[in-house]
Each structure stands twice: as C-alpha cells, then as structure tokens.
C-alpha cells in the first residue's frame, strides 16, 4: 500500500529525513519509535504532503502511484489520514461542521453527492458512541480549549468518520489517560481490517499492548536503523535507545 524508498526530505535546507525505507501492506500495523527530534512527525508530514517539507531524493508511492507531488487534500481523498501530534484549533467551527465538510469534500472528489443529513447524523452518533464521546462535545469549536486527551480522541473520531486506507497516528497515546487509551485503542482495533493499514508513532510500549503491531521500527536521525517485531518495543522500553546507537557504531 505505502512504499517509501530511500526518502530524503529537508526543511529550510536542513536535512531531516536521510534515506527512509518502509513498506506497509494492507492489513498491517507498523509502529515507529525513536528519540525526540529524530524525524517521526516529519515522516508523517511528508507522507501526507505538508508543503514546507521538500523531498530531495527517493520515492514515495501509495497504492502503486507516485504521490510525492500530490496536494495533501488529494492524498487525503485517496485515503491517507494523519492523526496530528498537535491538532490545530479552528475557532468558531464546530467539530460536527468540520467533519461534515471533510466528508462531503471527500465525496465530492469521488464524484458523489453530499451525504444526506440523516445519514450523516447517524454516522456521527455511531462513531461518537464507539469512542464514548459526549455529543455536546461535538458542537464545540474544533480543538479550541480542548484538553490534550480530548484533542487526541477527537482526532480518532475524525479517523473513524473518514475510514481511511492508511492511518498515521502521531503520538495519539500521549495525553490520554489510561481509560481513554483503552477506548481509543479499542476504536482503532474495531476499524482495522485487511483492507487498511495503521502506522503508530509512539514513545511508549503501553499503546502496543492494546494495538498490537506487526512490525516495530526505530527511527534515529532521519533513518530507520532497526526493525523488528513487537518484542523490540519491550526491549526499547527497558533499555532505551543508547544500545542501538552503540550497535550502529
């Protein structure tokens, strides 16, 4: 589904990604771990098409199609979803209005008509229930004054509404309390199928107890330096990153 080959990317002439190789197939869950500033969020941004990052070398394709030059909204229409590490506030735009706009814009891109209001409301109710979101919450301005955990849960709510093919969850677990983490993980698991894939960016092994990854990758200084199975996450939890650095030397 997602193929990344020797990907280099920079921002303001600063190289951040320095040769990433990653293949994600439908039905798989990949976890990416790594120290602060190693380039995890940058990778997520590059995959989803944030303009300020320039791909300087390598290839990025989704479903067999080169997406490296594609507008972010087009990638979204193809099914790429990013749960932001730092979700953005949009004052005066309610969660409902935002997601409604997003859904209809996605439908428009596929040549479909707007979703009928009744269907939309039903879908909203269903997904809000799945993630145990209070309906009152949905009429608040998007992310404005939301607590850290509320923001993250709202990201997953949007994911649930949009049903992407590839979901990249950038530190969605940070800021969630233990109960919320279970609810969100449970939501993600319910949405998982053989047709879609998930990339989990996280610092904590705990999340991986709930959403079990097929692969764990360690990203350091813009490169994937080690890949393994979920056991690798335990090892990292226990030993930190230094031993990998030493291994590399």
């Amino acid at each position: 589904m997602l193929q990344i080959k020797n990907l280099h990317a920079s921002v303001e002439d600063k190289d951040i990604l320095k040769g990433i190789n990653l293949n994600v197939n439908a039905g798989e869950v990949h976890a990416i771990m790594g120290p602060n500033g190693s380039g995890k969020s940058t990778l997520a941004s590059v995959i989803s098409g944030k303009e300020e990052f320039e791909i300087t070398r390598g290839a990025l394709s989704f479903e067999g199609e080169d997406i490296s030059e594609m507008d972010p909204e087009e990638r979204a229409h193809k099914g790429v979803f990013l749960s932001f590490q730092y979700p953005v506030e949009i004052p005066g735009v309610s969660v409902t209005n935002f997601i409604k706009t997003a859904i209809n814009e996605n439908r428009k891109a596929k040549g479909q008509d707007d979703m009928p209001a009744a269907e939309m409301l039903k879908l909203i109710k269903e997904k809000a229930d799945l993630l145990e979101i209070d309906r009152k919450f949905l009429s608040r301005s998007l992310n404005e004054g939301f607590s850290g955990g509320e923001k993250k849960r709202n990201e997953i709510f949007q994911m649930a509404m949009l049903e992407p093919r590839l979901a990249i969850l950038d530190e969605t677990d940070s800021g969630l309390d233990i109960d919320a983490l279970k609810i969100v993980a449970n939501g993600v698991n319910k949405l998982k199928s053989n047709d879609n894939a998930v990339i989990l960016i996280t610092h904590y092994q705990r999340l991986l107890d709930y959403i079990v990854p097929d692969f764990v990758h360690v990203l350091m200084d813009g490169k994937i330096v080690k890949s393994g199975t979920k056991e690798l996450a335990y090892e990292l939890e226990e030993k930190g990153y230094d031993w990998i650095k030493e291994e590399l030397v």
Partner: protein
Amino acid sequence: MKKKMGKFTEDDLKKELETKEYEYGFYTDIESETFPIGLNEGVVRAISKKKEEPEWMTEWRLEAFKHWKEMVEPEWANVHYEKPDFQAISYYSAPSTKPKYDSLDEVDPELLDTFKRLGISLDEQKKLAGVAVDIVMDSVSVATTFKKTLGEKGIIFCPISEAIKEHPELVKKYIGSVVPQRDNFYAALNSAVFSDGSFCYIPKGVRCPMELSTYFRINQAGTGQFERTLVIADEGSYVSYLEGCTAPSRDENQLHAAVVELIALDNAEIKYSTVQNWYPGGKDGKGGVFNFVTKRGICEKNAKISWTQVETGSAVTWKYPSCILKGDNSIGEFYSIAVTNNFQQADTGTKMIHLGKNTRSTIISKGVSAGQSQNSYRGLVKISPNADNARNFSQCDSLLMGNNCGAHTFPYIEAKNKTAQIEHEATTSKIGEDQIFYCNQRGINTEKAIALIVNGFSKEVLNKLPMEFAVEAQKLLEISLEGSVG
C-alpha cells in the same frame, strides 16, 4: 452612465399585465433622462421639481446644499483615494427604461457564475443583471399579497419619494432628525441631492410579520447613488429590515453616499441588516465604488436598535452605523463583518452614544483582510454625565491573510459618568499554514479551508442575520476571498 433598471410598483406591474405588454419589459413608456454634470442650487431645485416634491422638501434640500458648500471632505479616516470631482458627476438620472440585454446569454458569464453560486433565482438574476424579464403571475401575486398583509397592519413601506407626497407629516417630522443636514460632508450632499430610497413606518404596538427584505430585493435596483432611508418604529413596535443584496452590484457610479435614519420610539425594536457587495474594483486596484454612508438610529425609552452588516464590496468604505441611546434602558447593538481583499480599503465601525440611564451597548466587529487591503475598525463609546449605570461591551477581532494586508483598530472611549462599565477586547490572528494543512489533510482544499476558517471567525455576526441571508452571506464571504491565497 450605465442604464439601470427602474423602480416599479405593484400597480405598474398589474397594469402591464392587464395590457399584456409585459413581454416588452416594464418601462417601455418612461424615457431615460440624465442631468448634465455639475452641482449648483439650480440642479438641486431641478431634482426636487423632477420628483414633484412639495415646497418644504425643496427648501430642505437647498438648506442642505448651503451647508454642504461650506464643508470640506473629511480626511480622518484611514483610507486613501483620489477624491471625486463633485462637479463631474451627474446628480439626476431617471430610472432607465429599456433592459440592457435581451437574454441572459448576453451577460458577462463571470457575473452569472457568481449569481449561480449564490443561489439566486433565474428571474432575480435577470433583474439584477438588467435583462428583460417576463412577469410571472407568481411574483406579482407574492408582491401583492405582501403589500396587502402590510397594509392590513397599517405598515407603510414605500419609496421615500412616494412617502414625501403621501405621508408628508411623518417625513417632515423625522427626516434629518437623527442625521441632520449638516452632520457631515456626505450626509449634507445626500440631503441636497438624494435620489430615492425607502420609507418604512410601523404603527404603535405592531410587530411587522415579515422581514422587510423580499420586497426590497425586488425593488432595490435603481435607487441610485444617493440613497435615503427612513425607518420609524412607533411605540412598542418591531421591525426587521434587510438592505442590500449578496449579488454583486456592478454599478459604475463611482460615488455612493447614502443616509439611513432609524427612529425607535418607546419600547420599539428595529433590527437592520445590511449586506453590501458593491463592485470592489479590479485585482489591480482600479475602479470600484466609493461608499460613504451615514447610518444612525435613535432609541427612546426601552427601545432597541440592532445593526448587523456584512461588508464585502466597494473599493473604499466609510461607514459607522451608530446608536444614540437617548431613552433610559435603551439598547444598541452593532454586529459587523468587513472583508477586504486585493486593494480594498474599509474604515468602518460604530458609535454608541449613551445618554439615558441603564443604557447598554454591544459591539462585535470582525475584520478579515487579504491581499493588499487595509481594514480599520473605528468605534466610539461615549457615556454622557447623566447616563448612570451605562454598560458597553466591545470586541474587535481581526483576521489577516498573508503579509501584505493590514488590520487596524481605533477604539475611542469617552466616559463622563463614574458608574459606567466599559469592556473592550481585541484580537488579531492570522490564518496559519498549520490550520490550512490540517484542513487539507482532511480532504478540504485550501479555498474551502479558508472559507471554513473565515466563517468560523465570523460566526457570532452571521448568526445575527436573518436565516435566509445568513446562508447567502456565508457563500459571499467565500467568493470575496477567492484567490486570496496563492
């Protein structure tokens, strides 16, 4: 001068229908007539004569003209433009007769596209673009039913030229009572040469059963560049009045100087909403309408006046809908969205003059600037010595798009009573790339994202508009900002 659609009354329509001549358009019998350029006493007299006005009206105009001659154009506003040559303007143009076009096919496709996107009906599109219209029975019956309902309640709603003749006692009493002839340069000019406008009187205790808008929209074309509006809400009455149109008005008259006076007597309420979309000029900053408007209302005891405006058009806007809170416990409100793009300049805001006790005012102003435009809020809150316990809340928010535009706030406060409570909040924000990327990532393209963000920003004001117009106004904001982000 561009020919404009004339005014027509229901009677005209009926007559046309009876004689089955409507397929030729409404006004085949009236010849277009335009005065030569220039302004002097003779021209003022001639305007008054053309309109068959009574002597007192002629005198009133002449008095205004005398004041105007002594006045100079104000320069304090934060706008820069080449001053109009007042002797190079023609001050009278009879409603023109013939439609400009025979069919919509001849109209600028860009204009039509905008109409379509605003959801304006075909018939209305034709009227607005100046295309010959077939009268459908439907619109006639709607208009007549409308007039009948108003008539039954004793509501007077007619062109001001008609009111001058039919209801001289009301006009004489109230015209110039809120905006005196010598109030300011443009008000004086308007008083001398006003072309036409609307008059509305709601009798004691009557609640006007409908938004005074449908009718107005049908008749709004052809009121000319010096429009005069007078709305009187008698004791305990209520009216919601909507002026303007979301459809772009491609008027080639460069100068527009309107005056609106509102009178809310004891316990009355007037809600006055405006959507202004005059031609803003080209992307290069050439052309466009200068819009210098004086709008003011007076509130007697327990009365309330609420101004809501969505300003997206004009090259230069100079406009401060104001409330004189004369009566005790009276309330003034001002809700405004002003959008400027390209080279537009807007200097707009309000004045809340608290004279009575326990008077309250609320000001919510939202400015959106894009391109190279300049958007200024200018507001005065004045609490006079007798206005015990007066309260004001002001909030001025500016939203900037890009680095070449400007937002400015000039709040003036004059409090002469110690019990006054005045709160002022101001924010300036920028549409961030992060916000846009967030929307993009969800499948929302940049143009739509901007519309969404701007609508969110303007929500408190949009919510104050009558429903039917809120939706159009939202689309209008979207269209006004098109191409503002590269």
